[in-house]
């Protein structure tokens, strides 16, 4: 029997994509649909129980990989883990002072913003900063042959704080609109 790809293949190998931070999102989407077109349990609704079990396993694995590759933070964290660096998201909360200062300023701005316009202006500012950090993440990972994965992990941890803050902003937008 042909070995082919296994459920243990990396997300990148499963989607036939190069192992790097910047990926072609439309290619990712297209591959996801192609792979689900081959593996989804709906394709095996008339088949044996064995075929349905295998389809379920693959469809779950494909969705897991897709979700991880699609989200830039999850993708960066996954690249770290492939290079043996754990993010330690729960235990390691040490952040540079400048980063913490900015977080505090943003939190103050959110609690003081009383109008939808005010919250949306803050949202724009945070998004701009997030995009700039993502850009630097891309340089850190794709721009050099010898990546400092610990530094990458630190950047990702910072971005996780920012994303958490963004969901607080979204909640405020919901409450105000």
């Amino acid at each position, binding site marked *: 029997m042909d070995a082919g790809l296994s459920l243990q293949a990396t997300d990148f190998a499963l989607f036939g994509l190069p192992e790097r931070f910047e990926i072609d999102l439309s290619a990712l989407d297209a591959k996801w649909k192609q792979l689900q*077109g081959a593996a989804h349990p709906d394709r095996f609704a008339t088949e044996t129980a064995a075929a349905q079990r295998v389809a379920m396993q693959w469809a779950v694995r494909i969705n897991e990989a897709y979700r991880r590759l699609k989200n830039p933070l999850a993708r960066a964290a996954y690249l770290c883990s492939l290079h043996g660096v754990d993010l330690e998201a729960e235990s390691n909360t040490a952040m540079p002072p400048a980063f913490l200062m900015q977080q505090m300023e943003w939190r103050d701005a959110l609690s003081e913003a009383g109008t939808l316009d005010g919250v949306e202006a803050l949202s724009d500012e945070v998004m701009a900063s997030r995009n700039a950090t993502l850009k630097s993440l891309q340089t850190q990972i794709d721009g050099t042959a010898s990546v400092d994965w610990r530094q990458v992990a630190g950047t990702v941890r910072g971005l996780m704080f920012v994303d958490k803050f963004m969901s607080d902003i979204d909640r405020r937008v919901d409450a105000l609109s």
Partner: protein
Amino acid sequence: MALLQISEPGQAPDPHQRRIAVGIDLGTTHSLVAAVRHGLPECLPDEEGRVILPSAVRYTEGGGRQIGHAALEAQAEDAENTVVSAKRFMGRMLADVAGHQRLPYRFVDQPGMVGVATRDGVKTAVEVSAEILATLRFRAEDTFDDDVYGAVITVPAYFDDAQRQATKDAAQLAGLNVLRLINEPTAAAIAYGLDQGVEGLYAVYDLGGGTFDISLLRLARGVFEVVATGGDSALGGDDYDQRLASALLQRAGLGTLEALSPRERRNVQTAARRAKEALSAATSTTVSFEIDGRAHVLEATRAEFEAATAELTATTLRLLKRVLRDAKVATGEVQGVVMVGGSTRMPVVREAMAALFGRPPLVNLNPDEVVALGAALQANALAGNAASGDLLLLDVTPLSLGLETMGGLVERIIERNSTIPTAKAQDFTTFKDGQTAMAVHVVQGERELVSECRSLARFELRGIPPMVAGAARIRVTFQVDADGLLSVAAKELTSGVEAAIVVKPSYGLSDEQVAGMLKEGFASAEADMAARSLREAQVDAERMVLATESALAADGDLLEAGGRTAIEGLVARVRAAARDAGEPRAIEAAVEALAEGTEAFAAARMNRGIRDALAGKNVNEI
């Protein structure tokens, strides 16, 4: 009922023979069955030409039943034995059913699911729904003069796990092979998507009698992807009736709706509903009702109706915008808005959609039938009847799933709007030294507090070896299958001791309960239970033999000669058992052996499929 078909001994029916697959919209007020005939989906009528079956079951003297129109006609004289809108009790406890005090039933608040005491005993929504499903199944079998191979049944997108499980149990009880449960808005989008054949983003605005659902879907390269869902399970056309009724009473100086007797209230609300329906076509109408024996006749205008209900329409718009925001989509990106549910006949709703999206909504399919039509298309595709290259549906979980952690807080494991099937594992640890058991409480919902989410299941993981607090590694795995049904397993990792349990939600029926109900002499069951289960085992065996043979024909080259011979041996044994064994268990055992014996072959076939998909080949060209 259709006669059973018997093929000549030793000769399997043509594997490419068309399978009868139906789509069923199991609705709160009415239900429909549809199937693809001559390439197009259509709703199947009863002998009197009516496609709509009222979702009503009356339990009559002497253990009989009236289902549909007949039950509805007898409702007034025999309300407590006539169960209508059973869908509202599906997978629910009494406390979950809003306004149950106003219903004419003798409720029995039993563990698992609320029941209604009828003259034929206590009936749950599962049993009532099974009667309706069986009626629709017989309608389809009479239409095609053939057995129904399988069904796609639609459920509201907001249905939680318990409600989905209950729906599946009802189908099983009605003798239906459930090919898939799909969400109602998704079904509607399928009906329109294929009809129009246009790629892009679609919003589905589904305003029914008592619920509002909004879904955003993307159709691209033959794949239907549900991007986000939202809604309100307690907002619908009934609220529009109430607002109009209240406004009319107020204008006439007749007090509030709440101050009326239940009978008068129903009377006024019915009159308001008729006026609402009339105002969809005309700009004014007359409303007449009786209070305290005095007849009142009032004039109602469309403008008055729209003013009285403006808040409701605005709420639907707010929920719709929230879904768009969730999905990070601007209104201009939405290619079309599909209208589902009778309440979308109201001009004010259609105008609101046109104003928001800058284009008129899609209304050319009957909003009462569109869900069943979409389900029929999907059933046809799942049964393998559709032409190659047809659509694939990638749906999402409507609600987040999580666990209770310390302090009554929810730890979310699977986020809402995750594409299904999906699975996720998370590790937990013990809180106390020497702790040997851990309580796992599974909840569903978006809130932070367990008390504000829906409790799905509780179970205990026992036999954890005593360790210091924080040393144990308990991995809890959540899995949601393609029907949106959840299973949860927990396992202790560090000690090598395996203690795993898989739960079925506490609202779902156990297989034993379903078997018990079947034995209790069900109207839809054949008179002879033994004959029925034997027949079902034979049909299942035949299905597996055909599936295995077509797999061998397509991918037999993946097997060594010995492997092929082994599988062929297992197939022969299933055939022999189906032909000779007089009882179902021997057949099921042979089918199970075939399933086990083809596991490696199935994996190898999947590998080939995945490799071809990666190489960019269309799976249907292989």
